[in-house]
């Protein structure tokens, strides 16, 4: 007994020692290796493809990202990764981007931040200082972004927020953080606009949301927007982050019987909310939920309970943004919607994900790469300050729709959200009218009035 214990101990100690040695080796060798590969001081590196195109000197521009590939944002992280890779591949297939006479192909480097702010900082520093990345996709969520921001700013790198819909982070005076998606406070704008337009009779709104930073920002934004449209918010309640049973908070709605119910939070609670609304027989004229209904398996998981539920979406595969309908003052750039989906599917297949469609998280990340690439071209330089300046004047129209930022804060002001709805087991875009595939199903089937 004692002897085998000692042997186990020895084995354990040896294992740990080996790990420390390997770690130390990586720690030291990691540096040297990267330094050897650095080609120019601008941060571009000689790519592997350099030899294949001898006619023109092609260099590599590295874009980096801490992505949440494990932990609570793992799903979003995986989609973002594939969306970013899809756009990077598209740009490279177009021959890369041209900056001041040189052509650059893009390379995308990423590490898993485990959805943990304490991991993010060292990864961002590694990306900037060792992998010589000057342009970053920001991590998911405001907590992670806030932690990464001082380091990014210290090294003067640009971060594009593709997953953080937070408003607050952009009021903190960061210079180099730029938002791609519509901020949380404006999530339900399109949904409420739609109700206002198709049913002037609708008066009462109930809001039920998950008590979290994102969902609460959405809920409060929706509340004030609804009131500005003349709705009466009759119910405003939240539930804790990992609630399992929402019955207490939902049952009163049966008596209140609001015209419109909006809210939700993320995947888990959104599904639960939809299911329990259905089970408890709460049927307002419209149910609009955050995030969860945008996921393809929402209907698989819920069946009939999903029917008729609408959701605000940053993007849908069936949006009709195309080079043919570029709005006034905007310029088209990037793949078409079909091309994006095709590139995305290819990446997904390579990563063993099978035949799946991109979610809006993928589109967010892809759009961020496009916005960045165009800004670099516009700036004609890899200097982050110049690129950041170029972004101020950029008005881009892409497969993702409009992109334009507030020069002061970096907050996204151009992008509009669409409204999707589950109809007969399929997601269809029902708003805005010019982008819609079908009329909204309104009021909800089963609405008793």
């Amino acid at each position, binding site marked *: 007994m004692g002897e085998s214990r000692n042997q186990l101990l020895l084995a354990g100690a040896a294992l740990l020692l080996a790990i420390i040695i390997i770690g130390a080796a990586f720690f030291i060798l990691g540096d040297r290796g990267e330094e050897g590969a650095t080609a120019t001081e601008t941060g571009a590196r000689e790519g592997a493809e350099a030899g294949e195109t001898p006619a023109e000197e092609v260099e590599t521009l590295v874009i980096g990202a801490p992505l949440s590939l494990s932990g609570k944002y793992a799903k979003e992280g995986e989609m973002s990764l594939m969306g970013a890779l899809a756009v990077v591949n598209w740009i490279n297939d177009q021959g890369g981007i041209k900056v001041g006479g040189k052509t650059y192909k893009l390379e995308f480097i990423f590490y898993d931040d485990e959805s943990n702010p304490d991991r993010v900082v060292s990864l961002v520093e590694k990306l900037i200082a060792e992998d010589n990345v000057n342009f970053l996709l920001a991590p998911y969520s405001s907590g992670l972004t806030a932690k990464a921001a001082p380091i990014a700013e210290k090294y003067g790198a640009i971060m594009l927020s593709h997953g953080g819909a937070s408003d607050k982070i952009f009021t903190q005076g960061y210079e180099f953080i730029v938002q791609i998606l519509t901020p949380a406070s404006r999530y339900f704008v399109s949904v409420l606009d739609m109700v206002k337009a198709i049913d002037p009779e609708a008066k009462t709104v109930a809001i039920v949301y998950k008590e979290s930073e994102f969902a609460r920002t959405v809920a409060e934004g929706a509340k004030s927007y609804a009131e500005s449209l003349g709705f009466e918010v009759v119910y405003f309640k939240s539930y804790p982050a990992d609630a399992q049973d929402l019955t*207490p908070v939902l049952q009163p709605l049966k008596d209140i019987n609001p015209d419109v119910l909006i809210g939700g939070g993320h995947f888990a609670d959104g599904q639960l909310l939809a299911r329990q609304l259905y089970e408890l027989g709460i049927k307002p004229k419209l149910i609009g939920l955050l995030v969860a209904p945008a996921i393809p398996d929402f209907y698989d998981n819920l069946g009939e309970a999903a029917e008729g539920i609408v959701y605000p979406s940053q993007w849908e595969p069936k949006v009709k943004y195309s080079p043919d309908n570029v709005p006034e003052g905007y310029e088209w750039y990037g793949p078409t919607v079909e091309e994006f989906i095709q590139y995305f599917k290819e990446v997904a297949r390579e990563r063993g994900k099978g035949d799946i469609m991109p979610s809006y998280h993928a589109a967010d990340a892809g759009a961020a790469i496009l916005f960045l690439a165009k800004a670099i071209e516009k700036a004609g330089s890899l200097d982050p300050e110049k690129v950041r300046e170029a972004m101020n004047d950029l008005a881009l129209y892409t497969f993702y729709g409009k992109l334009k930022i507030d020069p002061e804060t970096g907050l996204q002001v151009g992008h509009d959200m669409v409204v999707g709805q589950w109809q007969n087991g399929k997601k269809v875009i029902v708003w805005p009218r010019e982008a819609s595939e079908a009329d909204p199903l309104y009021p909800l089937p089963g609405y008793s009035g």
Partner: protein
Amino acid sequence: MEVGQIFATILYGTLIGVIYGVATVGLNVIFGVLRIVNVGHGAFIMVGAYTTLVLYGSLGVPPPITIAASILLGAVLGLITYYLVIKHLVDAPELATLIATFAIGILLQETVKAIYGSDTRGFSWNLGFAEVLNVNIVYSRLAAALLGLLLLIALYALIYRTKLGLAMRAVVQDKEGAMVVGINVDRIYALSYTLGIMITVASGSVLAIYLQSGIHPYMGEIYTLKGFVIAVMGGLGSIIGAFVAGVLFGLFENASYLILSQIEGIQPLVLTRSIAFLLLLTILLLKPTGLFRR
């Protein structure tokens, strides 16, 4: 306050309470016999929920039958983790078992994630409903609570009506006494731990049938926490205590919501959590052996 609202509070408080009870007894069986607090408890519940999800979702096995599969899977997982880990830690300091069971939990979560991904999933097993006092009585939830009750009765019968159960209770009361009457205490440890895991995994299936959504690799964590509260309420180690405390806890959660929701400017359902833990502290201080122990 509407009559329907109060009726809903009692009805659904009781139903979820039964589920809480089933989802806690496993913790109690293991603590009672081995004096080990299973910090990985929730992960085993998660495994049960996935069992139902996968068997019903992709193979169409009727959900009540998936509980049987969960019990089997629980037996396998229980035996593996017992002989690989727990067996070596039975006499180790409490700290070691707390950390070890936590590590087992992580391993389960990450394995399930590696196989099924981190998506939140659900399924639809709709049995319809009846409407009483403007409250929908959802049959699938009733069915889940009944199945949970059946599990509890089976466990009760096992512990209070069989020889194995008698031996388990004997070990709980006096380990050395159990040795001298010829009980193989090591074997009782293995069986009790496995039994605890079996009922825990099975409770995951029951939970899945009740909620039918929100199934993801990390879903169990909240049940570890609530399980602790309920286990302590009922007296760590007590089977009936866990059940009664589960029902009381479900009612308490729902009732405190009803009261808190009368107050303006706060978020009642979120606060019920705080109150639940406040309750835990109070019980620990006043009667750490649980509410129903002499």
